[in-house]
């Protein structure tokens, strides 16, 4: 497994590295060391933030991008970079929740997002392995043939090009049926991001990495070092908003998704594949598998397969080991892969009604915008944000505004909404006195992280490979839930709203915007083997 050994040794939002981060130099700029005044400040250097900045910069707006890691060091760098207008939720569901017009607008916006990326690559001369190819949607064994028939009709009605096939091109171990969607795409996300950043700089935009926005409001941001960026408009594109306490976080749920990258001989079908999801696991958010290829060398490609999702912080001990094993087994049953070179996981924000939240921040001033709820389609949703938020800031009418409005509430997704929030309340009920994973540090083996209670306070303790104990507060600063250890990424993950922290407490993912207090690092004399 590739660990944090990328060319710069810089951490991403976890301990593993994606195929992109492991093979591509980090995109870094200088940290902010002065006060600034600008038209628009954008917090977050992922695809959403950088797309917004690019669109505004080419329209002549003065933009400043602030990123606490480096460009795409968050979830953008952990994508599998599928570009699809066929979302991970079915069009028949989108039609039920958002109506015929909503489903059509969703189809139109994602189609335009792929077109925009293709156009921008040509305009800015970005070499990022962009390819148009077919997408194949096939049945998961837990699903029924009728769902593909329904999807065929709903997708056509929404304006998506689709064909019925009785076999799955590229997968011989399974018989059809299958839906074929022409005109989908894939690219190398970090090469694309580098090209966009260079274009922003060319258009007089400014990008600062290694700069954390401690305070965010309608006047701008203040960094950890006290530098202020005053702006007419503020765009928060931090995967999940870090300045909101409740508004958005009750409407979406954080999921972990797992990915493997395996060597595969060149010569097979090049396409995107995904199944309809395991309805035995979750009828509302059926976790599905998704697959693509990426160039490796003259003889091999890398087959990138993802899936086996679960709600963040809800897995059992060593959950990731089981998830990677299940993913490998699923993939080997369908593709002739050789050695597995990469394993990584990422975070998906799943809105209760399946579409991202892009627009003005609810219960905030009109000049504050958010982008969140990527829903497993972060590349296109992030690109849509670039187009839509630019229009909102420039005062240009955009027919997608209502569909993606963060203020929307769909009564047809009320059941899902209630279920998600009941699950959060259930987490709170696990926080009672004298309840912890272990009662003594000695019970924690090397590479394990456990919750321990000391004098009525809960702590997260991780024992590293060299037998150092690292102890942090176990209380998530966002909404006070108890965090849970994620052994795969060596992080403390919050099961309530998906905040994540390094083993030594540094915040990796919102909605928390601050660290877990770090109490101590103890070198234990006795080595305890796991």
């Amino acid at each position, binding site marked *: 497994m590739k660990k944090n050994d990328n060319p710069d040794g810089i951490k991403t939002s976890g301990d593993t590295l994606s195929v992109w981060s492991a093979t591509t130099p980090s995109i870094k700029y200088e940290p902010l060391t002065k006060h600034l005044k600008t038209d628009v400040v954008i917090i977050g250097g992922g695809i959403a933030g950088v797309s917004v900045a690019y669109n505004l910069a080419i329209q002549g707006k003065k933009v400043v991008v602030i990123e606490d890691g480096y460009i795409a060091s968050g979830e953008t760098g952990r994508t599998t970079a599928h570009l699809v207008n066929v979302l991970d939720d079915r069009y028949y569901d989108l039609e039920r929740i958002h109506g015929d017009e909503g489903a059509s607008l969703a189809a139109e916006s994602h189609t335009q997002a792929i077109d925009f990326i293709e156009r921008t690559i040509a305009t800015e001369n970005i070499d990022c392995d962009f390819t148009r190819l077919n997408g194949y949607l096939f049945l998961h064994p837990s699903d029924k043939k009728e769902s593909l028939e329904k999807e065929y009709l709903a997708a056509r009605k929404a304006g998506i090009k689709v064909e019925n096939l009785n076999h799955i091109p590229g997968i011989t171990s399974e018989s059809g049926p299958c839906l074929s969607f022409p005109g989908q795409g894939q690219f190398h996300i970090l090469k694309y991001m580098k090209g966009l950043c260079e274009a922003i700089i060319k258009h007089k935009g400014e990008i600062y990495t290694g700069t954390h926005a401690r305070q965010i409001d309608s006047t701008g941001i203040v960094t950890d070092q006290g530098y202020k960026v005053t702006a007419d408009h503020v765009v928060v594109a931090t995967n999940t908003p870090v300045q909101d306490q409740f508004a958005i976080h009750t409407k979406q749920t954080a999921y972990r998704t797992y990915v493997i990258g395996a060597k595969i001989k060149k010569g097979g079908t090049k396409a995107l594949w995904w199944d309809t999801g395991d309805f035995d696991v979750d009828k509302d958010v059926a976790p599905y598998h998704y697959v693509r290829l990426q160039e490796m060398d003259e003889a091999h490609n890398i087959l990138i397969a993802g899936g086996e999702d679960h709600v963040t912080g809800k897995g059992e001990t060593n959950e990731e080991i089981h998830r990677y094993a299940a993913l490998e087994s699923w993939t080997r049953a369908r593709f002739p892969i050789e050695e597995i070179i990469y394993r990584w996981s990422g975070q998906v924000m799943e809105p209760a009604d399946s579409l991202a939240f892009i627009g003005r921040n609810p219960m905030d001033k009109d000049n504050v915008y958010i982008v969140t709820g990527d829903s497993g389609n972060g590349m296109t949703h992030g690109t849509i944000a670039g187009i839509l938020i630019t229009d909102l800031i420039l005062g240009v009418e955009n027919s997608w505004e209502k569909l993606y409005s963060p203020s929307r509430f769909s009564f047809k997704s009320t059941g899902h909404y209630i279920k998600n929030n009941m699950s959060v309340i259930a987490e709170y009920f696990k*926080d*009672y006195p004298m309840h912890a994973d272990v009662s003594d540090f000695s019970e924690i083996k090397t590479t394990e992280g456990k919750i321990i209670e000391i004098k*009525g306070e*809960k702590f997260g303790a991780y024992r590293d490979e060299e037998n150092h104990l690292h102890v942090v507060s176990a209380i998530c600063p966002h909404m006070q839930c108890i965090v849970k250890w994620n052994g795969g990424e060596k992080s403390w993950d919050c099961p309530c709203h998906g905040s994540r922290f390094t083993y030594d407490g540094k915040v990796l993912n919102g909605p928390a915007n601050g660290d877990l207090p770090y109490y101590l690092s103890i070198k234990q004399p006795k080595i305890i083997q796991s």
Partner: protein
Amino acid sequence: MIIAAIALFSLAAILGLLLFGFVIKGKHTPKALVLTHGPLAIAGIILLVIYCTQNDPDPIDSLILFLIAASGGLILVARDLMGKTIPKWLAAIHGLLAVAGFSLLLMFQFS
């Protein structure tokens, strides 16, 4: 009904005392206690409201004190969940109001 309300308030009071201990020591309040204490007290208040609307005389003074205590409790739980400091004086007043309301209720029922 009033006996049921007294029982609910008694349970809420026990949890409230435990929570007050955490607040006074400036420690994280276990959320299972917080989210059990509040609903128990609210259930007691609902029963008391029903009793007051159906009976005369009624323990309205007790109900008023419980309602004021409950509004303080809402502020406390909101601050707690948002990770803000819980003012000890507010927690104390919240508890004292509830104790006063509970005492009046006991006097109403048993004297």
